[in-house]
Protein backbone atom coordinates (compact mmCIF):
# COMPACT_ATOMS: atom_id res chain seq x y z
CA UNK A 1 0.00 0.00 0.00
CA UNK A 2 1.29 3.45 -0.82
CA UNK A 3 0.69 7.01 0.40
CA UNK A 4 1.58 10.52 -0.68
CA UNK A 5 4.30 12.07 1.46
CA UNK A 6 6.97 14.75 1.48
CA UNK A 7 10.53 13.56 0.74
CA UNK A 8 13.19 14.69 3.26
CA UNK A 9 16.92 14.88 2.64
CA UNK A 10 17.72 12.35 5.39
CA UNK A 11 15.63 9.74 3.56
CA UNK A 12 12.63 9.99 5.87
CA UNK A 13 9.15 10.92 4.64
CA UNK A 14 6.91 13.60 6.09
CA UNK A 15 3.12 13.40 6.00
CA UNK A 16 2.80 17.10 6.82
CA UNK A 17 4.99 19.98 5.66
CA UNK A 18 5.20 22.46 8.52
CA UNK A 19 7.80 24.98 9.61
CA UNK A 20 8.31 24.29 13.32
CA UNK A 21 8.76 27.23 15.68
CA UNK A 22 10.37 25.48 18.65
CA UNK A 23 10.83 27.18 22.01
CA UNK A 24 14.06 25.95 23.62
CA UNK A 25 12.86 26.90 27.11
CA UNK A 26 9.61 27.77 28.84
CA UNK A 27 10.67 31.45 28.97
CA UNK A 28 10.62 31.70 25.16
CA UNK A 29 7.36 29.81 24.59
CA UNK A 30 5.20 32.94 24.36
CA UNK A 31 7.46 34.48 21.73
CA UNK A 32 7.48 31.23 19.73
CA UNK A 33 3.68 31.30 19.88
CA UNK A 34 3.63 34.95 18.74
CA UNK A 35 5.84 34.21 15.72
CA UNK A 36 3.69 31.25 14.75
CA UNK A 37 0.55 33.38 15.07
CA UNK A 38 1.95 35.70 12.38
CA UNK A 39 2.76 33.11 9.73
CA UNK A 40 0.48 30.50 8.14
CA UNK A 41 2.16 27.15 7.64
CA UNK A 42 4.09 27.25 10.90
CA UNK A 43 3.41 25.30 14.09
CA UNK A 44 4.81 26.19 17.52
CA UNK A 45 6.17 23.60 19.92
CA UNK A 46 5.61 24.99 23.41
CA UNK A 47 6.62 23.65 26.83
CA UNK A 48 7.73 24.72 30.30
CA UNK A 49 11.08 22.91 30.44
CA UNK A 50 14.67 23.61 29.38
CA UNK A 51 16.06 25.20 32.53
CA UNK A 52 16.66 24.51 36.23
CA UNK A 53 16.84 20.75 35.79
CA UNK A 54 19.34 18.27 37.14
CA UNK A 55 21.76 17.29 34.39
CA UNK A 56 19.99 14.08 33.26
CA UNK A 57 16.80 16.08 32.65
CA UNK A 58 18.73 18.83 30.84
CA UNK A 59 20.08 16.13 28.51
CA UNK A 60 16.57 14.69 28.16
CA UNK A 61 15.16 18.07 27.05
CA UNK A 62 18.08 18.60 24.63
CA UNK A 63 17.60 15.25 22.91
CA UNK A 64 13.79 15.66 22.90
CA UNK A 65 13.99 19.06 21.17
CA UNK A 66 16.70 17.80 18.78
CA UNK A 67 14.62 14.81 17.74
CA UNK A 68 11.36 16.75 17.55
CA UNK A 69 13.19 19.08 15.16
CA UNK A 70 14.24 16.06 13.11
CA UNK A 71 10.69 14.69 12.84
CA UNK A 72 9.96 14.39 9.11
CA UNK A 73 6.67 16.31 9.40
CA UNK A 74 8.76 19.45 9.91
CA UNK A 75 10.30 20.78 6.70
CA UNK A 76 12.25 23.54 8.45
CA UNK A 77 12.78 24.70 12.03
CA UNK A 78 13.21 28.02 13.80
CA UNK A 79 14.51 27.74 17.37
CA UNK A 80 13.46 30.51 19.74
CA UNK A 81 15.88 30.78 22.65
CA UNK A 82 15.90 33.05 25.68
CA UNK A 83 19.71 33.02 25.93
CA UNK A 84 20.50 31.90 29.47
CA UNK A 85 18.66 28.53 29.60
CA UNK A 86 20.39 25.33 30.77
CA UNK A 87 19.95 23.43 27.51
CA UNK A 88 22.68 23.76 24.88
CA UNK A 89 20.79 25.49 22.06
CA UNK A 90 23.64 25.26 19.53
CA UNK A 91 23.85 21.52 20.08
CA UNK A 92 20.09 21.24 19.43
CA UNK A 93 20.49 23.38 16.29
CA UNK A 94 23.39 21.25 15.01
CA UNK A 95 21.50 18.00 15.66
CA UNK A 96 18.51 19.26 13.67
CA UNK A 97 20.81 20.51 10.88
CA UNK A 98 22.25 16.98 10.48
CA UNK A 99 18.87 15.93 9.05
CA UNK A 100 19.53 18.38 6.19
CA UNK A 101 16.52 20.63 6.79
CA UNK A 102 16.85 24.42 7.08
CA UNK A 103 17.20 25.50 10.70
CA UNK A 104 17.74 28.89 12.32
CA UNK A 105 17.75 30.32 15.82
CA UNK A 106 16.93 33.61 17.47
CA UNK A 107 17.94 34.67 20.98
CA UNK A 108 15.55 37.02 22.80
CA UNK A 109 18.25 38.40 25.14
CA UNK A 110 20.29 39.53 22.11
CA UNK A 111 17.65 41.57 20.29
CA UNK A 112 14.61 41.92 22.56
CA UNK A 113 11.13 40.45 22.48
CA UNK A 114 9.55 42.62 19.77
CA UNK A 115 12.54 42.32 17.44
CA UNK A 116 12.59 38.54 17.96
CA UNK A 117 8.93 38.34 16.96
CA UNK A 118 9.59 40.58 13.92
CA UNK A 119 12.78 38.83 12.80
CA UNK A 120 11.31 35.39 13.57
CA UNK A 121 8.29 36.23 11.42
CA UNK A 122 10.58 37.26 8.52
CA UNK A 123 12.61 34.04 8.79
CA UNK A 124 9.49 31.88 9.15
CA UNK A 125 7.82 33.58 6.17
CA UNK A 126 10.83 32.81 3.97
CA UNK A 127 10.98 29.22 5.24
CA UNK A 128 7.27 28.62 4.56
CA UNK A 129 7.64 30.02 1.03
CA UNK A 130 10.65 27.79 0.39
CA UNK A 131 9.22 24.53 1.74
CA UNK A 132 5.86 25.08 0.02
CA UNK A 133 7.64 24.06 -3.19
CA UNK A 134 8.15 20.52 -1.89
CA UNK A 135 5.59 18.28 -3.57
CA UNK A 136 4.00 15.11 -2.23
CA UNK A 137 5.30 11.96 -3.91
CA UNK A 138 4.24 8.33 -3.78
CA UNK A 139 5.92 6.27 -1.08
CA UNK A 140 5.54 2.71 0.12
CA UNK A 141 3.86 2.37 3.54
CA UNK A 142 7.08 0.87 4.90
CA UNK A 143 8.15 4.52 5.31
CA UNK A 144 5.51 5.08 7.98
CA UNK A 145 6.06 5.10 11.73
CA UNK A 146 2.90 4.85 13.85
CA UNK A 147 2.89 6.12 17.41
CA UNK A 148 0.30 4.53 19.72
CA UNK A 149 -1.36 6.34 22.56
CA UNK A 150 -4.34 6.02 24.86
CA UNK A 151 -5.85 8.89 26.81
CA UNK A 152 -9.06 9.32 28.71
CA UNK A 153 -9.34 5.53 28.87
CA UNK A 154 -12.31 3.50 30.02
CA UNK A 155 -13.17 -0.18 29.86
CA UNK A 156 -13.87 0.01 26.11
CA UNK A 157 -10.29 1.15 25.42
CA UNK A 158 -8.86 -2.17 26.58
CA UNK A 159 -11.73 -4.25 25.19
CA UNK A 160 -11.95 -2.81 21.69
CA UNK A 161 -10.03 0.36 20.70
CA UNK A 162 -6.55 -0.68 21.84
CA UNK A 163 -6.74 -4.19 20.31
CA UNK A 164 -7.89 -2.55 17.04
CA UNK A 165 -4.92 -0.15 17.14
CA UNK A 166 -2.72 -3.18 17.87
CA UNK A 167 -4.05 -4.97 14.80
CA UNK A 168 -3.33 -1.91 12.61
CA UNK A 169 0.19 -1.79 14.07
CA UNK A 170 0.74 -5.49 13.35
CA UNK A 171 -0.22 -4.82 9.75
CA UNK A 172 2.24 -1.93 9.42
CA UNK A 173 5.05 -4.09 10.79
CA UNK A 174 4.12 -6.89 8.36
CA UNK A 175 4.47 -4.23 5.65
CA UNK A 176 7.97 -3.46 6.97
CA UNK A 177 7.05 -0.21 8.67
CA UNK A 178 7.66 0.74 12.30
CA UNK A 179 5.59 1.29 15.42
CA UNK A 180 6.46 2.96 18.69
CA UNK A 181 4.45 2.93 21.90
CA UNK A 182 5.09 4.29 25.36
CA UNK A 183 3.35 5.02 28.66
CA UNK A 184 5.60 3.09 31.03
CA UNK A 185 3.25 3.65 34.00
CA UNK A 186 0.70 1.68 32.01
CA UNK A 187 3.01 -1.30 31.73
CA UNK A 188 2.80 -1.75 35.52
CA UNK A 189 1.14 -5.11 36.13
CA UNK A 190 1.42 -6.16 32.47
CA UNK A 191 5.20 -6.10 31.98
CA UNK A 192 5.39 -9.91 32.13
CA UNK A 193 3.40 -10.02 28.88
CA UNK A 194 5.68 -7.47 27.18
CA UNK A 195 8.88 -9.24 28.23
CA UNK A 196 7.61 -12.43 26.56
CA UNK A 197 7.85 -10.54 23.28
CA UNK A 198 11.29 -9.03 23.91
CA UNK A 199 13.57 -9.85 21.03
CA UNK A 200 16.61 -10.35 23.24
CA UNK A 201 17.44 -10.80 26.94
CA UNK A 202 18.80 -7.25 26.88
CA UNK A 203 15.45 -5.87 25.66
CA UNK A 204 13.68 -7.89 28.37
CA UNK A 205 15.91 -6.34 31.01
CA UNK A 206 15.36 -2.87 29.58
CA UNK A 207 11.56 -3.30 29.78
CA UNK A 208 11.79 -4.43 33.40
CA UNK A 209 14.24 -1.63 34.16
CA UNK A 210 12.04 1.24 32.92
CA UNK A 211 8.99 -0.15 34.76
CA UNK A 212 10.93 -0.71 37.98
CA UNK A 213 12.51 2.75 37.78
CA UNK A 214 9.12 4.41 37.36
CA UNK A 215 7.43 2.35 40.05
CA UNK A 216 10.21 3.15 42.54
CA UNK A 217 9.71 6.85 41.82
CA UNK A 218 5.99 6.44 42.54
CA UNK A 219 6.62 4.44 45.72
CA UNK A 220 9.07 7.09 46.97
CA UNK A 221 6.12 9.47 47.28
CA UNK A 222 4.40 7.25 49.83
CA UNK A 223 0.97 7.38 48.18
CA UNK A 224 -1.32 5.02 46.26
CA UNK A 225 -1.11 5.89 42.55
CA UNK A 226 -4.84 5.18 42.12
CA UNK A 227 -6.73 8.41 41.51
CA UNK A 228 -3.77 9.74 39.51
CA UNK A 229 -3.58 6.68 37.31
CA UNK A 230 -6.12 5.21 36.89
CA UNK A 231 -7.61 8.69 37.06
CA UNK A 232 -11.01 9.60 38.49
CA UNK A 233 -12.49 9.39 34.99
CA UNK A 234 -10.82 6.05 34.24
CA UNK A 235 -12.40 4.73 37.43
CA UNK A 236 -15.84 6.08 36.50
CA UNK A 237 -15.35 4.29 33.19
CA UNK A 238 -14.92 0.97 34.95
CA UNK A 239 -11.15 0.68 35.36
CA UNK A 240 -10.40 -0.40 38.92
CA UNK A 241 -6.62 -0.74 39.20
CA UNK A 242 -3.46 0.22 37.33
CA UNK A 243 -2.94 -3.49 36.58
CA UNK A 244 -6.31 -3.66 34.82
CA UNK A 245 -5.62 -0.44 32.90
CA UNK A 246 -2.16 -1.67 31.86
CA UNK A 247 -3.47 -5.01 30.59
CA UNK A 248 -5.83 -3.09 28.32
CA UNK A 249 -3.28 -0.42 27.40
CA UNK A 250 -0.50 -2.71 26.16
CA UNK A 251 -2.72 -4.28 23.52
CA UNK A 252 -2.37 -1.10 21.43
CA UNK A 253 1.22 -2.16 20.73
CA UNK A 254 -0.03 -5.25 18.86
CA UNK A 255 1.58 -8.66 19.03
CA UNK A 256 4.93 -8.37 17.26
CA UNK A 257 8.37 -8.85 18.84
CA UNK A 258 9.75 -5.82 20.68
CA UNK A 259 13.02 -4.81 19.05
CA UNK A 260 14.37 -2.16 21.41
CA UNK A 261 13.55 0.09 24.35
CA UNK A 262 14.50 3.77 24.18
CA UNK A 263 14.72 6.57 26.70
CA UNK A 264 12.29 9.51 26.54
CA UNK A 265 13.22 11.83 23.68
CA UNK A 266 15.34 9.30 21.78
CA UNK A 267 14.75 8.53 18.11
CA UNK A 268 14.14 4.93 17.06
CA UNK A 269 16.48 3.22 14.62
CA UNK A 270 15.46 0.36 12.35
CA UNK A 271 12.19 -1.36 11.52
CA UNK A 272 9.66 -3.10 13.71
CA UNK A 273 8.07 -2.50 17.10
CA UNK A 274 9.73 -0.26 19.68
CA UNK A 275 9.06 1.02 23.19
CA UNK A 276 10.03 4.48 24.36
CA UNK A 277 9.96 5.28 28.07
CA UNK A 278 7.47 7.93 29.17
CA UNK A 279 4.53 8.77 31.39
CA UNK A 280 0.91 7.75 30.87
CA UNK A 281 -0.07 11.44 30.61
CA UNK A 282 -0.95 11.60 26.94
CA UNK A 283 0.29 15.01 25.81
CA UNK A 284 3.73 14.46 27.32
CA UNK A 285 3.79 10.89 26.06
CA UNK A 286 2.94 12.01 22.51
CA UNK A 287 6.00 14.28 22.60
CA UNK A 288 8.12 11.15 23.10
CA UNK A 289 6.36 9.44 20.19
CA UNK A 290 6.96 12.47 17.94
CA UNK A 291 10.62 12.66 19.03
CA UNK A 292 10.94 8.94 18.32
CA UNK A 293 10.01 9.74 14.71
CA UNK A 294 6.29 8.91 14.52
CA UNK A 295 4.57 10.81 11.70
CA UNK A 296 1.07 9.89 12.91
CA UNK A 297 -0.41 8.90 16.28
CA UNK A 298 -3.25 6.40 16.75
CA UNK A 299 -5.03 7.47 19.93
CA UNK A 300 -7.75 5.49 21.69
CA UNK A 301 -10.09 7.31 24.04
CA UNK A 302 -13.06 5.81 25.82
CA UNK A 303 -13.98 8.83 27.92
CA UNK A 304 -13.29 11.23 25.04
CA UNK A 305 -10.21 13.42 24.63
CA UNK A 306 -10.01 16.28 22.12
CA UNK A 307 -6.21 16.77 22.15
CA UNK A 308 -3.91 16.73 19.17
CA UNK A 309 -0.23 17.45 18.71
CA UNK A 310 1.50 20.44 17.08
CA UNK A 311 2.83 18.71 13.96
CA UNK A 312 1.83 15.06 14.18
CA UNK A 313 -1.77 14.19 13.21
CA UNK A 314 -3.55 12.40 16.06
CA UNK A 315 -6.24 9.92 14.96
CA UNK A 316 -8.93 9.56 17.63
CA UNK A 317 -10.55 6.16 18.04
CA UNK A 318 -13.41 5.42 20.43
CA UNK A 319 -15.69 2.48 21.11
CA UNK A 320 -17.71 4.23 23.80
CA UNK A 321 -21.11 5.14 22.32
CA UNK A 322 -21.70 7.97 24.83
CA UNK A 323 -18.28 9.55 24.16
CA UNK A 324 -18.96 9.30 20.43
CA UNK A 325 -22.39 10.88 20.79
CA UNK A 326 -21.09 13.75 22.91
CA UNK A 327 -17.81 14.31 21.04
CA UNK A 328 -18.56 13.30 17.47
CA UNK A 329 -16.60 16.33 16.23
CA UNK A 330 -13.45 14.97 17.92
CA UNK A 331 -13.63 11.32 16.93
CA UNK A 332 -12.04 10.17 13.66
CA UNK A 333 -13.02 6.51 14.04
CA UNK A 334 -15.96 5.02 15.95
CA UNK A 335 -16.19 1.30 16.54
CA UNK A 336 -19.69 0.11 17.40
CA UNK A 337 -19.25 -2.42 20.17
CA UNK A 338 -22.56 -4.11 19.25
CA UNK A 339 -21.37 -4.86 15.73
CA UNK A 340 -17.74 -5.49 16.63
CA UNK A 341 -16.57 -8.91 15.50
CA UNK A 342 -12.80 -8.93 15.82
CA UNK A 343 -9.83 -6.61 16.09
CA UNK A 344 -8.28 -7.79 12.82
CA UNK A 345 -11.19 -6.66 10.62
CA UNK A 346 -11.51 -3.28 12.33
CA UNK A 347 -7.72 -2.94 12.37
CA UNK A 348 -7.65 -3.20 8.56
CA UNK A 349 -10.23 -0.43 8.27
CA UNK A 350 -8.32 1.73 10.73
CA UNK A 351 -5.09 1.12 8.83
CA UNK A 352 -6.66 2.27 5.57
CA UNK A 353 -7.97 5.41 7.29
CA UNK A 354 -4.55 6.20 8.78
CA UNK A 355 -2.93 5.84 5.35
CA UNK A 356 -5.52 8.32 3.99
CA UNK A 357 -4.56 10.72 6.79
CA UNK A 358 -0.90 10.18 5.94
CA UNK A 359 -1.70 11.25 2.38
CA UNK A 360 -3.21 14.51 3.55
CA UNK A 361 -6.71 13.94 4.91
CA UNK A 362 -7.00 16.11 8.01
CA UNK A 363 -7.84 14.66 11.41
CA UNK A 364 -10.65 16.15 13.48
CA UNK A 365 -8.08 17.66 15.90
CA UNK A 366 -6.26 19.32 12.98
CA UNK A 367 -9.46 20.81 11.59
CA UNK A 368 -10.46 22.09 15.03
CA UNK A 369 -6.95 23.48 15.55
CA UNK A 370 -6.44 21.56 18.80
CA UNK A 371 -2.76 21.21 18.12
CA UNK A 372 -0.93 23.82 20.12
CA UNK A 373 0.39 22.14 23.20
CA UNK A 374 3.00 19.41 23.52
CA UNK A 375 4.99 19.61 26.72
CA UNK A 376 8.01 17.61 27.81
CA UNK A 377 8.18 15.09 30.63
CA UNK A 378 11.10 15.35 33.04
CA UNK A 379 11.89 12.94 35.88
CA UNK A 380 13.62 15.01 38.50
CA UNK A 381 13.07 18.02 40.72
CA UNK A 382 12.89 21.52 39.26
CA UNK A 383 15.73 23.39 40.88
Amino acid at each position, binding site marked *: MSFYGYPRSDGSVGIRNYVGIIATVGCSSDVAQDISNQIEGTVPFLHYQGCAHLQPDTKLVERTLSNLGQNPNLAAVLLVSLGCESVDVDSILNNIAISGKPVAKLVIQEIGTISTIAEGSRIARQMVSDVSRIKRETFDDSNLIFGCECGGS*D*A*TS*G*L*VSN*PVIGAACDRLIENNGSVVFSET*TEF*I*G*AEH*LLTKRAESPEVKQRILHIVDRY*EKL*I*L*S*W*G*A*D*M*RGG*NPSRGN*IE*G*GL*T*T*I*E*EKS*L*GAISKGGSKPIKQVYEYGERIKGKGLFIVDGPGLDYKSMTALAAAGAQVILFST*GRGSPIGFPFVPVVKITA*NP*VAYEHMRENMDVYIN*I*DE*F*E*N*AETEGQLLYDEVVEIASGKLTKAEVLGITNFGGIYTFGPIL
Partner: protein
Amino acid sequence: MEKSKQPRVNLTKNAMLIKGCDRDKSNCTPVGKAMRRKVIILNGKDNVAVALANLKAKELIRIETGKGAPCVLLIDNIPFGHKFSLTRIKSNSPVIKYGEIIGVASTDIQLGQHVHVHNVASIRGRGDLAKERKK
Protein backbone atom coordinates in the same frame (compact mmCIF):
# COMPACT_ATOMS: atom_id res chain seq x y z
CA MET B 1 -32.67 -21.46 21.41
CA GLU B 2 -30.40 -22.80 18.70
CA LYS B 3 -26.74 -22.02 19.04
CA SER B 4 -26.50 -20.70 15.48
CA LYS B 5 -28.97 -17.95 16.31
CA GLN B 6 -26.94 -16.59 19.17
CA PRO B 7 -25.12 -13.34 18.48
CA ARG B 8 -21.42 -13.91 17.99
CA VAL B 9 -18.86 -12.22 20.18
CA ASN B 10 -15.18 -12.50 19.46
CA LEU B 11 -13.63 -9.63 21.33
CA THR B 12 -10.48 -11.58 21.96
CA LYS B 13 -9.43 -15.12 21.17
CA ASN B 14 -10.58 -16.48 24.52
CA ALA B 15 -13.73 -14.45 24.87
CA MET B 16 -16.89 -16.26 25.78
CA LEU B 17 -20.43 -15.32 25.05
CA ILE B 18 -22.75 -14.33 27.81
CA LYS B 19 -26.29 -13.25 27.32
CA GLY B 20 -28.96 -11.74 29.43
CA CYS B 21 -31.68 -13.97 30.80
CA ASP B 22 -35.36 -13.45 31.20
CA ARG B 23 -35.86 -13.36 34.92
CA ASP B 24 -39.42 -14.66 34.59
CA LYS B 25 -38.15 -17.92 33.15
CA SER B 26 -36.50 -19.80 35.91
CA ASN B 27 -34.52 -21.96 33.49
CA CYS B 28 -32.61 -18.87 32.30
CA THR B 29 -33.66 -19.05 28.67
CA PRO B 30 -32.22 -16.16 26.71
CA VAL B 31 -34.73 -13.45 25.92
CA GLY B 32 -34.38 -13.57 22.17
CA LYS B 33 -32.12 -13.07 19.21
CA ALA B 34 -32.76 -9.35 18.97
CA MET B 35 -31.11 -8.84 22.33
CA ARG B 36 -27.90 -6.88 22.42
CA ARG B 37 -24.84 -8.56 23.80
CA LYS B 38 -24.84 -7.53 27.41
CA VAL B 39 -21.76 -8.96 28.98
CA ILE B 40 -18.32 -10.30 28.09
CA ILE B 41 -15.91 -12.60 29.84
CA LEU B 42 -12.49 -12.03 28.31
CA ASN B 43 -10.75 -15.20 29.43
CA GLY B 44 -11.75 -18.58 30.80
CA LYS B 45 -9.72 -17.93 33.96
CA ASP B 46 -11.58 -14.71 34.78
CA ASN B 47 -13.63 -14.42 37.95
CA VAL B 48 -15.24 -11.19 36.75
CA ALA B 49 -17.33 -10.29 33.69
CA VAL B 50 -17.65 -6.89 32.02
CA ALA B 51 -21.04 -5.29 31.40
CA LEU B 52 -21.57 -4.08 27.82
CA ALA B 53 -24.79 -2.31 28.80
CA ASN B 54 -26.10 -0.63 31.93
CA LEU B 55 -27.31 -3.65 33.90
CA LYS B 56 -29.75 -3.50 36.78
CA ALA B 57 -29.64 -5.22 40.15
CA LYS B 58 -31.78 -8.38 40.28
CA GLU B 59 -31.14 -9.02 36.58
CA LEU B 60 -30.24 -12.62 35.81
CA ILE B 61 -27.29 -13.19 33.51
CA ARG B 62 -26.71 -16.58 31.93
CA ILE B 63 -23.13 -17.59 31.30
CA GLU B 64 -22.43 -19.93 28.43
CA THR B 65 -19.18 -21.54 29.33
CA GLY B 66 -19.85 -24.83 27.62
CA LYS B 67 -19.78 -26.33 31.10
CA GLY B 68 -23.45 -26.00 31.89
CA ALA B 69 -25.21 -22.68 31.97
CA PRO B 70 -25.07 -21.12 35.40
CA CYS B 71 -26.91 -17.92 36.05
CA VAL B 72 -25.61 -14.91 37.89
CA LEU B 73 -28.14 -12.85 39.78
CA LEU B 74 -26.79 -9.30 39.88
CA ILE B 75 -26.75 -7.86 43.38
CA ASP B 76 -25.86 -4.31 42.27
CA ASN B 77 -26.47 -2.08 39.28
CA ILE B 78 -23.53 -2.60 36.92
CA PRO B 79 -22.79 0.43 34.69
CA PHE B 80 -21.53 -0.02 31.13
CA GLY B 81 -17.87 -1.11 31.19
CA HIS B 82 -17.93 -2.07 34.85
CA LYS B 83 -17.34 -5.54 36.29
CA PHE B 84 -19.33 -8.01 38.36
CA SER B 85 -18.22 -11.14 40.11
CA LEU B 86 -18.73 -14.57 38.57
CA THR B 87 -17.86 -16.36 41.80
CA ARG B 88 -17.52 -15.59 45.45
CA ILE B 89 -14.10 -13.96 45.83
CA LYS B 90 -12.66 -14.11 49.32
CA SER B 91 -10.86 -11.14 50.83
CA ASN B 92 -7.19 -11.03 49.73
CA SER B 93 -7.85 -13.39 46.81
CA PRO B 94 -6.88 -12.36 43.29
CA VAL B 95 -9.37 -10.67 40.98
CA ILE B 96 -8.80 -11.93 37.44
CA LYS B 97 -9.64 -10.24 34.12
CA TYR B 98 -7.94 -10.86 30.73
CA GLY B 99 -6.74 -14.10 32.42
CA GLU B 100 -4.41 -11.95 34.56
CA ILE B 101 -4.45 -10.64 38.11
CA ILE B 102 -5.80 -7.09 38.20
CA GLY B 103 -5.70 -6.74 41.99
CA VAL B 104 -6.89 -8.40 45.19
CA ALA B 105 -10.26 -8.35 46.88
CA SER B 106 -10.12 -5.92 49.79
CA THR B 107 -13.20 -7.56 51.29
CA ASP B 108 -15.27 -10.66 50.57
CA ILE B 109 -17.04 -10.25 47.22
CA GLN B 110 -20.33 -12.04 46.57
CA LEU B 111 -21.45 -13.66 43.33
CA GLY B 112 -23.06 -11.00 41.13
CA GLN B 113 -21.65 -8.07 43.09
CA HIS B 114 -20.19 -4.93 41.51
CA VAL B 115 -16.39 -5.38 41.49
CA HIS B 116 -14.61 -2.04 41.65
CA VAL B 117 -12.52 0.31 43.79
CA HIS B 118 -14.73 -0.27 46.85
CA ASN B 119 -13.79 -3.94 47.05
CA VAL B 120 -10.59 -4.34 44.97
CA ALA B 121 -7.11 -3.03 45.81
CA SER B 122 -4.13 -2.62 43.50
CA ILE B 123 -1.03 -4.62 44.31
CA ARG B 124 1.22 -2.28 42.35
CA GLY B 125 2.14 1.37 42.62
CA ARG B 126 1.24 1.34 46.33
CA GLY B 127 3.48 3.97 47.85
CA ASP B 128 1.03 4.11 50.76
CA LEU B 129 1.79 0.49 51.66
CA ALA B 130 5.53 1.02 51.21
CA LYS B 131 5.29 3.96 53.61
CA GLU B 132 3.43 1.85 56.20
CA ARG B 133 6.03 -0.90 55.94
CA LYS B 134 8.80 1.63 56.62
CA LYS B 135 7.04 2.68 59.83
